[in-house]
C-alpha cells in the first residue's frame, strides 16, 4: 500500500497547477504538436543510427582532446570513475545534476571508497544534506519546507539560520561555493552529446553546471548513450522544447556547449546499462526518446498524490517505471506499474510523444508472464473473462444475488469490514435486474417491424458496465438514436477484453475480443457508450486479433457523443422539448474520451444544449476520477484520494449535474456523491440527451 502525505500532496498539486499555467503561456505562439513531432522524429532517427553517432562523437571528442570511454553497466561506470579519482588523487568531487549517476549509485559507491561526492544543484544538495531521496526529477527537494531547510542548514553551519528563502539561498551559495573550490573534480551529465563536433550540451538554471565544469581541474561527463544527436541544430530543438515543457521557461538561465577539455583533463563516460537491449526491442525503444523534461510527472494524477519517493525506484512515475524495468529489472518495476492509471494524460504533455500508458500495459504483460500476478486477477481474467460462457454465468449469478446485496436506491449494501477499503469511499452499484440487451429487446423488438423505413442502421455496443449495471444509459442512447430515425441494433453482451489487456493478460484479452468479434454483426456505425470499450474496438482490438473483421470494426466504432454531434446536431435540437428547466452543469473529462478520442468538446456542447446552460468548468476537469478499472482495486487508497479531489472540484462549481461519457467514471463519481452526501446528479451524456428530448432534465 502506498503512503499518502497530505502536505506533500498539496505542494505537488499546487505545483502542477502553476506549472500548467506557465507552460501554456510560454508555448503560446508555438505549435507544440509540430515541435514535438519534429523532436520525436529526430530522436527516432538518432536512435536508428545510435552506434554510428556514438562512434562519430567519440572520434570528434577525442580530436578535441577528451578521453572517451564506454561503460556496459553501472558497476563498470563507477569503476571507471574510481580509476579517474585514483589517477588524479581526487578526494572530493562536486556534481552537477546527473540522473545517470543516481542510476549507477555513484555517490554511495565513492563514499565507500573514501571519496566524497557532493551535489551542487540546490535541491539535490538539500536532499543529500537531509540524507533523503529526491521527490521530483527537476525539483528534488519539493517535499521540504523552508523550516525543514533552515533546520538542516543550522546543523550544517552550526549557526542559527533564519527561515526566509532568500537568506537560505545565500547560505547555500556560500557553502556550495566553498565545496566547489575545494573539489578536485567536477562531474556532470549531458543534455545532449553532439556527434558532428564532439561537444556536450548542458542546461542549468542555477549556474552550478558552469562552475562544476570550470572550477575544479578535472571534468567528468557521465552520460547515457541515447543522448547522442547528429548536429547542433538538433540540440537546439531539444533546447527549444526542454525548458518550456519542463518548467514553463522560455530558456534556462545557463546553457553551455563544451567541446573538449580546457585547463585539465576531460573524461566522457558513455553508459549503456541495458539501453542497447531497449534499443533492440521494437516495442520499447521509443522510451529512449525521453529528454527527461519530467512534464509527464508534473501532470500525473498519481504522482501528485503519492510523490516521487513512493512512485520511483530511481526514475520516477510512468516513464520511470519503463526505465526501471530495463535498467533495474522487471521485478523492481512491478509495484510501480500497478500504480499507473493508464489515463494517457502524460502523453498529451510528452515532448517526444512517448506512448507511456500503452507501454506500461505492454510492460504489465511482460511482468505478469515473467514474475506472476495476483490470484484474483488470474481468476477474473484467465478464468472468467476469457470464456464467454463462464462470463455470462458469472454475471447471471451476480444478478441472482441482487436481492441479497442490492438496496432500493440501486446501490449495493456495504461490503464486509475486511473489504471496506474498496467501497467506503464510494458506494458500489447493485447489478441491474435486467441487463441492457434484454431491456432493449423488450422495448424495441415490437417497434422494429413498424419502423422499417428507418434511414440508417446503427449498432450500439454498451460494454459490461452498461450491460449489467447501467442499462438505463444504453436505453437512453437507443431511444435518442431511434427518435432521430435510426434502426438501432445492439451488440452482443460480451466483454470487449479491455480490462484483461490492461492488466497484462494479453492472451485472455485476445480470446475475449475474438469471441466478441465472432458474435458481433456490425451494421452501420458501431456506437460506443464507454471510452475504454471504444479504445478496445478501435485501437487495441486490431492489435490483439489480426483480422479483416477486427479492422472493419475499428473503422466503424465511434463514440456516441461524436456521432450525434457530427451527424445529428440540427435534428437533435429540433427534437428537444422547449420549456424544460435549465440546470447548472459541469463536465468531467473521462481519460480515454479526452486523451485518446478527443471527443470531450463534442460532449460538452451536447450537454450545454441539453441543459440549456454553459458548462461551469471545474478545476482540472481532465484529471482522472480514480476509477480506472482494476486500478481502484489495486490501489483503493489512491483511488479514494483522487475521487475526493474530484468531488471537491465538482462541489466548488456549484453545479447541480455533473456530466460524463464513461460508465466507469459514473460508477466512481455517483458512488462518491452518494457516500459523501454531495447532492449533485452524476449522469452520462446520453441520459441527459434523452431527458431533454422527453422534456425532463
Amino acid at each position, binding site marked *: 500500500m502506498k503512503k499518502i502525505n497530505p502536505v506533500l500532496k498539496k505542494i505537488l498539486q499546487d505545483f502542477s497547477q502553476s506549472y500548467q499555467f506557465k507552460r501554456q503561456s510560454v508555448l503560446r505562439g508555438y505549435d507544440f504538436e509540430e515541435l514535438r513531432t519534429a523532436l520525436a522524429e529526430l530522436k527516432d532517427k538518432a536512435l536508428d543510427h545510435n552506434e554510428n553517432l556514438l562512434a562519430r562523437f567519440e572520434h570528434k571528442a577525442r580530436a578535441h582532446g577528451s578521453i572517451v570511454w564506454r561503460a556496459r553497466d553501472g558497476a563498470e561506470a563507477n569503476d571507471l570513475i574510481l580509476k579517474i579519482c585514483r589517477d588524479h588523487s581526487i578526494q572530493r568531487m562536486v556534481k552537477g545534476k546527473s540522473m545517470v549517476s543516481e542510476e549507477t549509485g555513484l555517490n554511495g559507491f565513492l563514499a565507500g571508497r573514501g571519496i566524497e561526492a557532493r551535489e551542487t544543484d540546490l*535541491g539535490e544538495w538539500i536532499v543529500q544534506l537531509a540524507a533523503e531521496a529526491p521527490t521530483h526529477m527537476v525539483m528534488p527537494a519539493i517535499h521540504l519546507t523552508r523550516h525543514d531547510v533552515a533546520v538542516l542548514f543550522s546543523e550544517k553551519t552550526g549557526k542559527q539560520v533564519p527561515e526566509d528563502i532568500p537568506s537560505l539561498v545565500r547560505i547555500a551559495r556560500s557553502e556550495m561555493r566553498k565545496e566547489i573550490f575545494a573539489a578536485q573534480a567536477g562531474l556532470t551529465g549531458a543534455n545532449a552529446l553532439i556527434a558532428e*563536433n564532439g561537444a556536450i550540451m548542458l542546461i542549468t538554471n542555477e549556474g552550478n553546471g558552469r562552475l562544476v565544469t570550470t572550477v575544479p581541474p578535472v571534468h567528468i561527463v557521465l552520460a547515457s548513450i541515447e543522448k547522442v544527436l547528429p548536429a547542433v541544430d538538433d540540440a537546439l530543438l531539444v533546447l527549444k522544447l526542454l525548458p518550456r515543457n519542463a518548467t514553463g521557461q522560455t530558456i534556462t538561465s545557463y546553457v*553551455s556547449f563544451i567541446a573538449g577539455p580546457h585547463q585539465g583533463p576531460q573524461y566522457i563516460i558513455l553508459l549503456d546499462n541495458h539501453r542497447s537491449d531497449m534499443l533492440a526491442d521494437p516495442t520499447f525503444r521509443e522510451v529512449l526518446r525521453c529528454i527527461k523534461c519530467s512534464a509527464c510527472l508534473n501532470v500525473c494524477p498519481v504522482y501528485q498524490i503519492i510523490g516521487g519517493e513512493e512512485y520511483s525506484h530511481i526514475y520516477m512515475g510512468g516513464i520511470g517505471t519503463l526505465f526501471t524495468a530495463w535498467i533495474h529489472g522487471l521485478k523492481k518495476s512491478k509495484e510501480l506499474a500497478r500504480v499507473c492509471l493508464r489515463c494517457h494524460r502524460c502523453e498529451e504533455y510528452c515532448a517526444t510523444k512517448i506512448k507511456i500508458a500503452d507501454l506500461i500495459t505492454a510492460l504489465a504483460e511482460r511482468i505478469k508472464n515473467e514474475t506472476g500476478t495476483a490470484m484474483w486477477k488470474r481468476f477474473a481474467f484467465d478464468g472468467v473473462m476469457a470464456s464467454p460462457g463462464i462470463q455470462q454465468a458469472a454475471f447471471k449469478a451476480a444478478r441472482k444475488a441482487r436481492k441479497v446485496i442490492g438496496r432500493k436506491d440501486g446501490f449495493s449494501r456495504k461490503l464486509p469490514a475486511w473489504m471496506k477499503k474498496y467501497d467506503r469511499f464510494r458506494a458500489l452499484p447493485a447489478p441491474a435486474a435486467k441487463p441492457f440487451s434484454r431491456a432493449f429487446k423488450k422495448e424495441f423488438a415490437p417497434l422494429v417491424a413498424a419502423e422499417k423505413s428507418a434511414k440508417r442502421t446503427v449498432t450500439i455496443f454498451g460494454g459490461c458496465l452498461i450491460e449489467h449495471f447501467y442499462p438505463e444509459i444504453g436505453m437512453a442512447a437507443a431511444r435518442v438514436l431511434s427518435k432521430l430515425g435510426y434502426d438501432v441494433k445492439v451488440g452482443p453482451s460480451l466483454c470487449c477484453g479491455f480490462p484483461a489487456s490492461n492488466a497484462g493478460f494479453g492472451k485472455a484479452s485476445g480470446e475475449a475480443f475474438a469471441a466478441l468479434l465472432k458474435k458481433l454483426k456490425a451494421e452501420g456505425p458501431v456506437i460506443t457508450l464507454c471510452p475504454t470499450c471504444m479504445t478496445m474496438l478501435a485501437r487495441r482490438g486490431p492489435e490483439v486479433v489480426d483480422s479483416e473483421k477486427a479492422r472493419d470494426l475499428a473503422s466503424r466504432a465511434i463514440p456516441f457523443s461524436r456521432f450525434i454531434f457530427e451527424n445529428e446536431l440540427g435534428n437533435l435540437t429540433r427534437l428537444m422539448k422547449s420549456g424544460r428547466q435549465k440546470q447548472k452543469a459541469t463536465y468531467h473529462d473521462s481519460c480515454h474520451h479526452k486523451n485518446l478520442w478527443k471527443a470531450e468538446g463534442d460532449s460538452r456542447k451536447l450537454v450545454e444544449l441539453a441543459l440549456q446552460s454553459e458548462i461551469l468548468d471545474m478545476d482540472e476537469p481532465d484529471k482522472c476520477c480514480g476509477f480506472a478499472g482494476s486500478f481502484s482495486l489495486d490501489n483503493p487508497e489512491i483511488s479514494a484520494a483522487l475521487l475526493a479531489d474530484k468531488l471537491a472540484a465538482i462541489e466548488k462549481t456549484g453545479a447541480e449535474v455533473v456530466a460524463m461519457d464513461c460508465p466507469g467514471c459514473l460508477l466512481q463519481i455517483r458512488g462518491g456523491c452518494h457516500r459523501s452526501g454531495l447532492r449533485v446528479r452524476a449522469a452520462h451524456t446520453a441520459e441527459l440527451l434523452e431527458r431533454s428530448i422527453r422534456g425532463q432534465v
Partner: protein
Amino acid sequence: MTDINVRGPFRCGRGDAPVGATRPTLIKYMLTHIDKFIEKAKVADAEVELFPSVQRAVQFLKDFLSKNEIKGAIISEALKKRDPFDKEFSSLSGQLSADSIWVDAGIVSADYGIAETGTLIHFDASDEEKNVWTLPETCLCLLEKKKIVPHLEAIAPEIASHLARTDISSPQVSLVTGPSRTADIECQLTIGVHGPARLVILLIGT
C-alpha cells in the same frame, strides 16, 4: 536534420526581413528585435541600460563600481585587450586568483543577443572567461544593438562552426539568460544561487 524554424544563416540584426527589403524596412525589423530583446531580458530578471556609445557605457561602469564601492571587480581578458577598456580598466584583473571565490562584479561582453528569449551568447575560449560571467555577485555585460538576432537558430551555423574549431583548445559556446535562479525551496523563485544575483546588460548603439 530538422528544418523547424531553422532559417539558415542571418546577417546580424536583419531578422525576418524579406530578402531584398529596403533600408527602412530593415531598420524597422531591427528595432522590433531590439525591443523584444529588452522585454524578454527583463522578463528573465535582467536589468537593461541603453547607451549611444561605448564611452558612455564605460562611464556608467566606472560610476557603478565606485557608487557600489566595489573593490573586487574582474574583467574578461578578451575585453581588457580592447580599446578603450585597456586604458580605462587597466587596474582590473582579467586573471582569476584565489580571491576570485568571492568577487563582487565582473565585466564581460556578449557576442550576440537573442530577441526571442532575451539571451546573451558568448563564444569563449576559456574557463576563466566563463568564470568572469558566473562567479561575481553582479555581472555587467556589454552588447551591441546590431548584434541582436531574432532567434537562436539564426546563429546555429556559427555555433556549429565554433564548436568544430580545432585551432583552440576547448571551443565553448555559452548562453546566459537573466541572473542565476532556483525554485528548489518551496517552488519560490529566488535569484543568485550559484551565479550572479544581478545581471546588468549594457546595450550599446543608436
